[in-house]
């Protein structure tokens, strides 16, 4: 462990208590990566503060000594945003798990950052409310992590992302000061610093208390599954649905290869011979859902759907979602290794981009399974390869990178929900010019003039360039634990 970090340990113990500081090498190693295990580094020291004052004292100590710190929630991130540093302090929020308040009259909840996303919904559900952002790891991922990553989920098509649901924050700045931003009242005076903070990937400080909006649970939810011969036909159905003025809460698509994998893994029973499966979910007032479900079914048939199933109760709905939610884990069964990509294209560019991905796949001999949020053009191609085969990993990485290039070429984004982290920091210049990146850097330095908050994440640094994107083997670690699904 580098000396500057070692020197802090007695004072960290004084702040967090002996049980709140981890120095043992084997224990530290359990924090060496987030869910993107390709990037790993053993943290210099791990602290587990129990409240705002402890977080602030730890960060102040880091600031005094110029030691970097890395915030970490539940470690479910997929861009190595919580990758530790051996010369730094890893600040985990796992002991800050209190729900302070469920305030139904003001439709909000006040929570600590370590609270699991789904636990807010569990606490609000008896009152008929829920917390809308639903990343697939929602059983375990922390709200603080959601704030850092501006997490979305399958239903963000209609309900938006974490940024649209955070009303207030208590933040420990990289200088160690405690600042309250927003709250239960709308439109706090001055700059929208909450808007800047959400999605800042731990580079602007650590959120220690979060006030989130609660959403009234919908009167009716209806899920339609439609099977098509090709993804083109499925894509045509999506375009027709959007053009008809329908705003579903979720629109998901899987191609033949991902359907095959899901079938092998969980026997989801999707229609035989489908080249694409489309899942469309509608929610809202019963009258609207009924009217729009009929429109969706009609448009799917007109686009060539050969089988349509509709689910109006939670059990049937869960059966439809089972295959979709297991798709990533399932791919581990049909391929020894794979890369998960996360790119976005304008929805109307989907058919073209999917064709180009198929061409890339054919040319390289690398199979690509496509699972995607079709409603908002967020692709999650799974690039499959055999890591025992010499050169396969390199070719897979090339295909994965080429898919991102396609996204940028079509006016899209290099990440729709997984974040930039370390993994995509060197792709940022492909999407943003030097003055754009400079503007980002201005914001970062306004919060963190010393550059100690999660350094080398989000923005490119010379040291990072040239590293390969992440490669994963087999099942996602969280899925293997039964702790969550992965989209």
């Amino acid at each position: 462990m580098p000396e500057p970090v070692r020197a802090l340990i007695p004072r960290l113990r004084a702040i967090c208590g002996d049980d709140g500081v981890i120095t043992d090498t084997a224990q530290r190693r359990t924090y060496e990566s987030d869910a993107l295990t390709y990037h790993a580094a053993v943290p210099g020291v791990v602290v587990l503060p129990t409240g705002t004052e402890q977080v602030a004292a730890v960060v102040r100590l880091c600031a005094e000594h110029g030691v970097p710190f890395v915030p970490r929630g539940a470690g479910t991130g997929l861009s190595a945003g919580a990758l530790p540093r051996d010369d730094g302090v890893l600040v985990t929020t796992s002991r800050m798990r209190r729900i302070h308040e469920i305030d139904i009259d003001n439709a909000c909840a006040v929570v600590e950052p370590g609270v699991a996303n789904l636990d807010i919904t569990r606490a609000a559900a008896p009152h008929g409310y829920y917390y809308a952002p639903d990343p697939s790891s929602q059983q375990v991922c922390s709200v603080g992590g959601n704030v850092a990553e501006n997490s979305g989920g399958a239903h963000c098509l209609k309900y938006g992302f974490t940024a649209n649901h955070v009303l207030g924050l208590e933040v420990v700045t990289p200088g160690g000061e405690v600042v309250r931003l927003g709250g239960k009242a709308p439109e706090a005076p001055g700059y929208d610093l909450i808007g800047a903070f959400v999605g800042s990937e731990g580079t602007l400080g650590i959120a220690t208390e979060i006030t989130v909006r609660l959403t009234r649970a919908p009167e009716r939810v209806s899920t339609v599954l439609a099977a098509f011969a090709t993804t083109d036909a499925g894509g045509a159905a999506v375009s027709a649905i959007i053009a008809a003025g329908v705003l579903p809460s979720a629109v998901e698509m899987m191609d033949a290869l991902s359907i095959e994998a899901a079938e092998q893994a969980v026997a989801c029973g999707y229609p035989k011979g489908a080249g694409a499966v489309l899942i469309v979910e509608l929610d809202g007032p019963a009258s609207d859902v009924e009217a729009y479900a009929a429109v969706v079914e009609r448009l799917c048939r007109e686009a060539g759907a050969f089988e349509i199933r509709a689910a109006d109760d939670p059990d049937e709905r869960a059966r439809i979602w089972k295959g979709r939610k297991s798709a990533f884990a399932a791919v581990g069964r049909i391929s020894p290794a794979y890369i998960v990509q996360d790119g976005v294209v304008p929805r109307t560019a989907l058919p073209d981009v999917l064709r180009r991905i198929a061409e890339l796949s054919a040319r390289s001999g690398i199979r690509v399974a496509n699972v995607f949020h079709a409603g908002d053009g967020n692709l999650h191609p799974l690039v499959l390869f055999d890591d025992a085969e010499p050169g396969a990993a390199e070719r897979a990485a090339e295909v994965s990178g080429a898919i991102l290039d396609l996204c940028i070429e079509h006016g899209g984004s290099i990440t729709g929900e997984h974040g930039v982290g370390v993994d995509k920091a060197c792709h940022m210049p492909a999407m943003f010019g030097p003055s754009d990146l400079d503007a980002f850097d201005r914001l970062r330095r306004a919060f963190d003039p010393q550059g100690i908050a999660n350094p080398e994440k989000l923005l490119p640094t010379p040291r990072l360039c040239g590293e390969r994107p992440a490669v994963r083997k087999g099942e996602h670690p969280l899925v293997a634990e039964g702790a969550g699904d992965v989209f």
Partner: protein
Amino acid sequence: MGSRRDAEALVDALGASGAALRPGGEEDAVGGCVPRIVAVPPDPGAAAALMAAAARHRLVTVARGHGTKPVWGGVPERCDVLIDTGRLNGVDHATGDLVVRVGAGTPMAELEAELAKAGQRLSVDAVVAGSTVGGVVATGLSGPLRLLHGPVRDLVIGMTTVLADGATASSGGRVVKNVAGYDLGKLHTGALGTLGLITSVTFRLHPVPPARRFVRVSVEPGDSAAVCDAARALRASQLVPSAIELDWPVDGPPELQVLVEGAESGVGRRAAAAAALLGGRAGVGTEPPEGWGELPGAPDDLLLKLAYPLTGLPEALDVLRSAAADAGVGVAVRGSAGTGIMYAALPRSAAAEEAAVDAVSRLRAAPGDGRASFPDAARAPRPRHPHLPGARDEIPGLALMRAVKDRFDPHHLLSPGRIAGGV
């Protein structure tokens, strides 16, 4: 003040940018601050060149759309160059993607008309008639639809700005789902041009709902708690209203106005259910009530803003109304009872100023998250009242805001002093 020689010197400094230049006059004043010169850049490139030249000469720039909210926020400390965004216009509508990129100087009405051709809308109300897109975004002013669709910043997915040094910086993009880079669009929204000149904005759009109904109920006996309880009950219902507005004129009972939108087959039933829930003699119609989404009162009235949690709103309204009653002046209130943002207008008089200052002082002294303010410097009490709480007090995060301002605009050349806290 624009002497001919001064204007000539400025033309020398800024002329090469390609912006059309003319001396500033009284009609261009921003809160009494008359610009030395008015510049109209013909395109974003010229705007960038203009800003770069202004920065080299340490000239203070202030952006203006159609000048419908010229003194929203505070009066700028100085104004050398007024930048008129009128020619930074144009609409690039990606119909199938439900996305539009708009030049900042485009009138909201023009954008609305263009989008309507494709059955789409930007779910943002132009609260002040004649506003430009850039003006709406820079002020962050939201209207009734905010209840269902969120404030303006929630619909911004990309933005291009010119920073103080003339560098052009974009963030976000043309896709709704995008977490690459910081969301600077949110930072610029409501920043009143103090961090950069907004040249274009990309928004996510919504389909125009096939049908709508307005439900109107007079709430008796007209006390604030009853009004707010009714608004909360509507929010907690399954009716998913797009807007819940309160219109409380100077004389007359308060009226709750509810907008329900959706499939034709359902809106009638939902509107009837809303009326039943409110329990009054409700009227249901398809056209908006008079004044829908507009600020209350007359253009010269004193304007106050209340931004409160729903449970805090009744007390805030009571404090305001009792201060007005004590002073013997009338107060008109209108705003979003569903989200807790209300505007109040008092016809200008010495007594009204006393009442307004008294109400704001009492509300600011009260604990809780809410805040009362004078949102428009042109309509704030004048001259400064000794009891008026300072503009620089009680702003959480002010040190961070100053740090952000210092990084984006180190020489304080962009509308300095215009935003809360004198930033």
